[in-house]
Structure formats: C-alpha cells, structure tokens
C-alpha cells in the first residue's frame, strides 16, 4: 500500500493519463529529457562555481571542512527554496486527503508517503548543488573512502533540515492565509520574497562566488558562529570527524523527528479542516455584458490573478522585463561603451540589441502555456457551451495579451528614456516587445495543445510540472540567448533598423503561421481533448 501511495503521488506529479488510456511514450521522453537537461545545466553551473571556490578554500589535506560546510549550507538553501511551496501543497493543500482518509489506510501511511515524495524532491535540489562540489573536490584532491561515506551520509541528511524548515514555514503560511481574505496577494508577495533574492543570487552568481572565494576566513567564522551544524558537517566530510558528524546527525534528525511528530499528531485535523474563507455577503450589482471571447479571456485573467503559483510562474518574466528596461536605461552608457570598445558597435546598434534583449525576456512569460491544462475537470463547461474551438483558443490568447502587453509596452516606453535614442529605436522599443509577446502567446498555446495535462491533482502540476511548461521555459531561455547572440553577431552585416524590421517580421510571420494552426489542426486538437 505504501509503495502504491508513493507511486501514485509521483505519477500525479510527473505523468499525465491520456484520455484513450494509451501510453504516450514520446511525451514522457521529452519531459524527462528536459528535466535531465535542466539538472545537467544547473549541475554544470554549480560545478564551475566550486572550481573557483575550491581553489581558495581547499588544499587537499585536513581543514577543507569550510568548503564542504558551504556546499552543505547552499544545498540546504536550494532545497528549501525549491520545496517550500511544494511542501505546503502536499501537506496542507492536498485535495485527496479526505478521500484517502476514508479508505482503510493508516493516516501515518498517507503522511509518510507524502514525506517520502517531499524528501525525494528536496534531495534532488540538494544533490544538484552538493554532488558537483564533491566531484570538483574528488577530481582535484581525491576524496578518501571515509570522506565518500561521510559525504553520502551528509547528502542524505541535508534535505531533512530543509524539510524541517519548510514544514514550519508552510505551517506559518497556512496559518496566516487561512485568516486572510486576499490569500493570492499574500502568496504572490511571499513567492516574490523567496524568488527575488534567489534570482538576484543567480544573476550575480559570478560576483558572489568570486567575493566568497576571496574570504575563506570570514566564511569559516560565519559558519562556525551562526551555522555550526553545517560547519560540523563540513568537518565530518573533510576530516572524518565522527563527533562532528554526530552533532550534524543530531541537528538534522531531532528537529525533523519533532516536526514529524507534531504533523502526524495533527494530520487528521489538517487534512479535514475547513479551509478558512472569509465570507462576503452578496450585494446585487450591475452585471457586465461581454462577448463570448472576452468572457473566456476575462475568466482566464481571473484565474491567473487568483492563483499565486500561476501569477508568479507566468508573470515573473513581466516583472523582469520592466526591471531590465529600467536597468538598461541606467546602465546604457556603460553597456554601449563596452560594446563599442569590444566590437566597434555604434550606440544606435547597441540600443537595438538592448531592445531585442529586453523584448526577448518576455518569452519566459507563461500564460497560455498552461491555459488548456488548467481547465482540468472543468473542460466540460467550455466544451458543452456554444463556443467554437477558435472562440475558446482566441479567448485564451486575449487573456495573455491583457496580462502581458501592458508590461511589454511599459518596458518599451522606459527604453525610450535612453539618452539620445534614435527615432527608429524609439518606435521599435515598443513594437518588438509587443510582437514578440503576441508570438509567445501563440507558441505557449500551441505547446499546451500538443502536451496538455488535464488530470492534475493540484494546479501547480499543470503550471510547473508539465511538458508544455518545460518546453516553454527552455524555449524562452533559448530564445533570449539566441536573439541577443544573433543581434550582436549581425552588427557588421545589418544596419540596426533592418535588424529590428527583420526580427519584427519573423515573429509577426511566426504568429501568422500559428494563427493558421489554431484555425486548423489546433482547433481539431482542442475538440479531441
């Protein structure tokens, strides 16, 4: 039974059950291929960081504990950021609690199955950081057998700390949101509070790593003074120090066991509690009449704004786009000078590159990419309504425009403040982000039509853990690199105005092709769902 519960939970997170019951091996392969690519990508990033850090922190003899301590701490932080929201969804927001509790299954078994899944999730995040640290060290200095044993033990234990912290934070979130009327806003702010430092860390990673690498003594002192368990972990791996290992073991196991005991004692209460809603009395108001397409669009917008996971994942690119535009205005002169000195690029061409770069950030906006999947069990409403497939699909596209285009336009207006920007660049600063955003809406919708995930247990699975979402994220990231790279590469061949016209034309034509797809195969595909 336990195995079945765990497998069910995993399969609900990673697989979709096709309507016709046939396995779709291709989709699964793409999905896992993308996950492996992501793991390798991040693994390589951490690998290169640890090469820099190990140069300064390690000498291959005893006393390299600070290096492993830092790796353990960063692994814990990564696992915490990666799993805190999942913890909340799996423990406090799971929709199948009542169903499972009504079956002859012990509550402890239901809870244990969830804990196992969360552990694997946190372990994956932790390992992405910790394993490269070990490989770098082993490659440079050779790790003893005892070092390997300790490393593996610490790797197993580190996620328990992040899980304990996640349980507490998720419990606090639950406590606060159950008393709030506007839970979504709170969750959005909270997610941004977690994401912004994380994104800032990723963006400034090279500088931070260089900074940290130069300050071994300071890092050691901070770890010893404020984060001693991690220091103990580092010493255990580096010097095979059993006492330090036992300290680390106690610090991980005891709080985890206490958290588990508290949760298991209150699990039935958690699982069966009425979700706190602040009741509002209906006051009759004039109802707004809309066209069918706009009704679908506004429904989608409401869904987007009412779900913090959707709003944050889908809308992060919008905030980044505006922030990048502000940054570009402030730093344009430095950037233009750098491009001029390196490549002899004119200021006008540099401005065009900035326009393309900022517009391409909009490619990671994900509104339509899960719009079909999110219909889930509610798909019957649209399908039994007198709406043609194209009405529904267009409604979903309109929602993307309503959400994303104001940000694209604002980012363009901000770019207009670059000192001395030409008239052509001023015009395309608004046109390129808008055209690109229209393309992104089509691309996302087409992805979701090809890879829908309608059988989710909670909406986060459709938003974050579907093949369509992975393709869109990777496609978006690839697009940013590709567009900026091509723009820079073409500076000797094309005038900047022609570059901007070509990019606008390519994405305009791409949107036109997707429009044809939606009217033909896309509509057919929707009707088959």
């Amino acid at each position, binding site marked *: 039974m336990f195995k079945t519960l765990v497998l069910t939970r995993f399969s609900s997170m990673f697989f979709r059950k096709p309507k016709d019951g046939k396995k779709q091996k291709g989709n699964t392969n793409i999905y896992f291929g993308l996950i492996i690519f992501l793991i390798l990508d991040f693994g390589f990033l951490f690998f290169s960081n640890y090469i820099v850090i190990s140069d300064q922190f390690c000498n291959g003899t005893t006393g390299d504990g600070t290096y492993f301590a830092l790796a353990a701490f960063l692994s814990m932080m990564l696992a915490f950021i990666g799993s805190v929201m999942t913890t909340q969804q799996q423990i406090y927001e799971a929709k199948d609690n009542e169903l499972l509790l009504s079956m002859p299954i012990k509550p402890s078994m239901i809870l244990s199955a969830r804990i196992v899944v969360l552990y694997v999730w946190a372990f994956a995040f932790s390992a992405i950081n910790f394993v490269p640290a070990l490989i770098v060290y082993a490659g440079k200095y050779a790790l003893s057998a005892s070092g390997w044993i300790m490393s593996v033990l610490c790797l197993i234990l580190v996620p328990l700390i992040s899980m304990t912290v996640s349980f507490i934070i998720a419990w606090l979130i639950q406590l606060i949101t159950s008393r709030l009327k506007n839970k979504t806003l709170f969750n959005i702010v909270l997610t941004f509070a977690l994401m912004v430092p994380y994104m800032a860390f990723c963006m400034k990673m090279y500088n931070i790593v260089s900074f940290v690498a130069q300050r071994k003594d300071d890092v050691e002192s901070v770890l010893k003074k404020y984060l001693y368990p991690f220091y103990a972990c580092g010493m255990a791996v580096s010097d095979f120090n059993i006492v330090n290992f036992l300290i680390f073991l106690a610090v991980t196991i005891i709080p985890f066991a206490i958290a588990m005991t508290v949760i298991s004692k209150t699990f039935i209460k958690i699982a069966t509690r009425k979700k706190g809603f602040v009741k509002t009395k209906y006051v009759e108001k004039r109802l707004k009449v809309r066209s069918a397409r706009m009704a679908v669009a506004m429904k989608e917008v409401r*869904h987007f704004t009412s779900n913090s996971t959707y709003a944050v994942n889908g809308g992060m690119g919008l905030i980044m786009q505006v922030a990048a535009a502000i940054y570009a205005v402030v730093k344009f002169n430095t950037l233009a000078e750098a491009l001029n000195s390196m490549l002899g690029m004119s200021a006008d061409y540099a401005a065009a590159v900035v326009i393309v770069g900022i517009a391409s950030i909009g490619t990671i906006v994900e509104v339509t990419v899960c719009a079909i999947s999110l219909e889930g069990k509610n798909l019957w409403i649209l399908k039994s309504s007198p709406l043609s497939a194209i009405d529904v699909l267009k409604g979903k596209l309109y929602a993307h425009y309503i959400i994303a285009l104001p940000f694209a336009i604002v980012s363009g207006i901000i770019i207009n403040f670059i000192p001395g920007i030409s008239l052509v660049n001023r015009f395309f600063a608004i046109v390129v982000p808008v055209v690109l955003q229209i393309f992104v809406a089509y691309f996302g919708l087409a992805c979701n039509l090809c890879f829908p995930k309608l059988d989710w247990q909670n909406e986060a699975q459709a938003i974050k853990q579907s093949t369509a979402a992975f393709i869109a994220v990777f496609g978006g990231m690839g697009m940013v690199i590709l567009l900026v790279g091509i723009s820079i590469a073409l500076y000797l061949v094309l005038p900047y105005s022609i570059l901007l016209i070509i990019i606008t034309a390519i994405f305009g034509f791409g949107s036109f092709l997707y429009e044809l797809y939606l009217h033909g195969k896309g509509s057919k595909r929707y009707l088959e769902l």
Partner: protein
Amino acid sequence: MLYINNLTKRYGQKVAVDNLTLHIAPGEIYGFIGHNGAGKTTTIKACVGLHDFDEGEITINGVSVKKDPIKCKSMIAYIPDNPDLYEFMSGIKYLNFIADVYKVSEEDRNSKIEKYTDLFGITKDLANPIVSYSHGMKQKLAIVAALIHNPKLIIMDEPFVGLDPKAAFEVKEIMRNMAKEGTAFFFSTHVLEVAEKLCDHIAIIKEGHLIIDGTVDEVKGNNSLEDVFLELEGKDV
C-alpha cells in the same frame, strides 16, 4: 426535440452504446434509467457534444450535433453528474460568465439569476468563491447556470444527487413548469421513484442496448417501476 437515431459509441473494442434510438418531444420529461456503466452518461455526453460517436445521428430541433454543434449547444443546457465548476470564480461571476457565453441580455440574466438563486437559497453566497461551496450548493449553482439562457432542451446526468429535499423539490417543480411551456428534459437517474412520478417517458438501457421505452404506464403496466426494472435487469440482452 431530441432525436437519437441508431447511436453507437465504442471505446476500443468495448461497445458502450449499441444502436440506440430515442425520440424526445418538446415539453416531455424523459427519464433514462440503467445500472452503472449501462451507457447513460456516454449517451448524454454524445448528445451535448462532449463525446464523439461512431455511428448514428443525433439531432436537436432538427439540427445535427455533428454538423452544427454550436447551434445545438446554444439550444440546450447540460448539468453533469459531478458539478466541477470554476472554483476560482465567485458564484455570481460564474453565472455572468455563462450568461456571456450564451449571449443572454443584461436584463434577462439579472432577472433569471435573481429568480433562481432566490429559489434555491444561494443568493447571499453569490459573492463567495465557488471553492467554498458545498457539493449541494455547487449543484444548485450548476442548475441555475443551466437555466439562464432559456434552453429548449435540458440534459441532466443524475440531477438530484447532492441536493437537499427542498432543492430537489424545487428542481422537480421547475422541470414540470418549464415542460408545460415546451422545454424538453432528458435526464438519467437511479432514483426510480422520481422517474416514476416525474417522467412522461422512460427508457431503460442495459449494457449499451435499449431494452424498453415508452410512457411510464406503458413501461410499468400494473407493476411498480422498481419491479419492472429489476426484472428487466435480470434478463439477458
């Protein structure tokens, strides 16, 4: 109003509905009875355009469901067995959304919403998100949504499940009153007592085959509908 002619639907090798023919006239309340897995929901979903079908034809008011599904859907209302609604919406926003989709005028939607939500006692909850509604409240909301656009045919899958006795009574009253004005009802049910008292016509389906149909009196004769149903259920198809 609803013509189902020689309908056949297969899931792979399994024939879910086999050569089914039913005719439902305007103003008629037509009960569709059968055991679990008999093919009731499949038939209903084919009628409302949620499932494609392999053979046969379904027409609503002379319009083919296959050829002009949008026109058909604009004439009907569907209430599923499990009211999965948009939980992120409030009740009133959901009803307004449905009114937009069916192109109901502002005046009509206001009066219908007021009338039916008052009748079912859910008016005061309309501002709350649907996720906070009980199963019965969701079912009531789904019924109100189905009535907003004056459908000519209402197709319901187990409409009385989850309703409290008062709401069930109100639904039956609405059905009778609307039927008098010409609206046809086609609904599946397991509650034979309801079917016996409410319906003009009854069809019993078993393993995808229609085994009997006719007026309630024709079907049950001098027996109770329960006796007839159990007897027919025992027979081989």
